[in-house]
């Protein structure tokens, strides 16, 4: 299987850069977006297998972005990153079709494994 093409969306620049770099070092094709609208732009112009979205972002938040993604790219698997106070958003996110929820701070190995699983799911679906 080709390495997963991952889009990471988070408004914290440092976090985003670190995560994208670490994913790349592990052989994934990773790109970062600092906002929902920027993420949509990248999705329109590229092909991705998995998106990792921060739930809390100013402007368009992770849930809104998830909705938009699932409307337009139902095959793209989405993993949500969340801090605290997250049960309601967790339930909403899962109902809207998120693949999984990962608590922040995210452990890289854990996240990698989930990305692989999400990628596997996408290919099992026969996209």
């Amino acid at each position: 299987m080709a390495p997963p093409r991952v889009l990471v969306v988070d408004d914290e620049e440092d976090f985003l850069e670190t995560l994208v770099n670490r994913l790349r070092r592990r052989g994934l094709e990773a790109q970062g977006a600092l906002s929902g609208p920027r993420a949509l732009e990248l999705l329109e112009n590229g092909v991705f297998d998995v998106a990792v979205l921060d739930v809390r972002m100013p402007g368009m938040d992770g849930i809104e972005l998830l909705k938009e993604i699932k409307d337009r790219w139902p095959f793209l698997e989405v993993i949500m990153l969340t801090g605290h106070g997250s049960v309601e958003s967790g339930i909403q996110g899962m109902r809207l079709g998120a693949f999984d929820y990962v608590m922040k701070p995210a452990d890289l190995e854990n996240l990698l494994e989930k990305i692989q699983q999400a990628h596997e799911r996408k290919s099992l679906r026969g996209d």
Partner: protein
Amino acid sequence: MGRKGGKEGSRRLPWLPWVGVGLVALGSLGALLTGSQLWLVVILVLGAACCGVATGQLLAELGKARRERALLDARVVQSHKLAALGELSAGIAHEINNPLAIIGREAELMEHLVGSALAGAQDGPRAELQESLREVSRQVERCKEITRNLLSFARKMEPVFQKVDLNRLVEDMVRLVERETQGKGIQILREYHQGLEPIRTDPPGLRQVVLNLLNNARQATEQGGTITVRTKAVLGGGVEMEVQDTGCGIPREHLARIFDPFFTTKAHGKGTGLGLSICHGIVSRLGGRIGVRSQVGKGSCFTVWLPVEPGSGGNA
């Protein structure tokens, strides 16, 4: 569902009727030999009593079997009812979407007309009219959300089966809920069966079920209460996951209906009532079963049984 029956019922004594018959025979024989009426009466009474108790037990067994049968029937009716309701709600959602599209479009047209035709009109009333039309559009958006939810409820999202470590999947969701229960002074106890074999199931679907059950338990439990999350291997095959709370419990009259769509005991606006029916739908699609035991004031325990491989059976 895990069956706990058997050990709770009164113990059966299969030799009891034979003792009764023996005593009756012995009594008759004794009475014939000795000619004593007293012997006859005492031993006949004893024998009859033994037979009576045995018959009573037999009837109790019969009643239990009948009750279990009724429960099973209720579950079958339940899943038929859910399927029918799913189709119905999808149909309604589709039908509503068309008039909704027209209402939304007309509101947009009116906004446009107000903007151009009333260009010279007073600002106050015009702004008010525009705001009012925007409100119509907002409410159309809201209805749209509702119909989408109905459709996603009805839609048989084809599950994608992947190998899953149940303990890890459950633990991930427990952590998500734990931060909020800690704040409320509710403790989550984990009783995971170590060395559980991996199962093939639909991970996001199962996560949704676990999260919904945990969230219901959280909402039902008062400060100082506990939620116990259990996983176990089932003897007849498959695995089980339980979420038990020390919350308010579910009244008997609600138990039969809690998996119905829209059945809710929460206040208006607090819950859509889709949680448990969604869980029921998902678990059925995964080839599993969901059940509940509850006692008012003591708490509830939801049990989800899942096969190791989709389509493989387990204990009936």
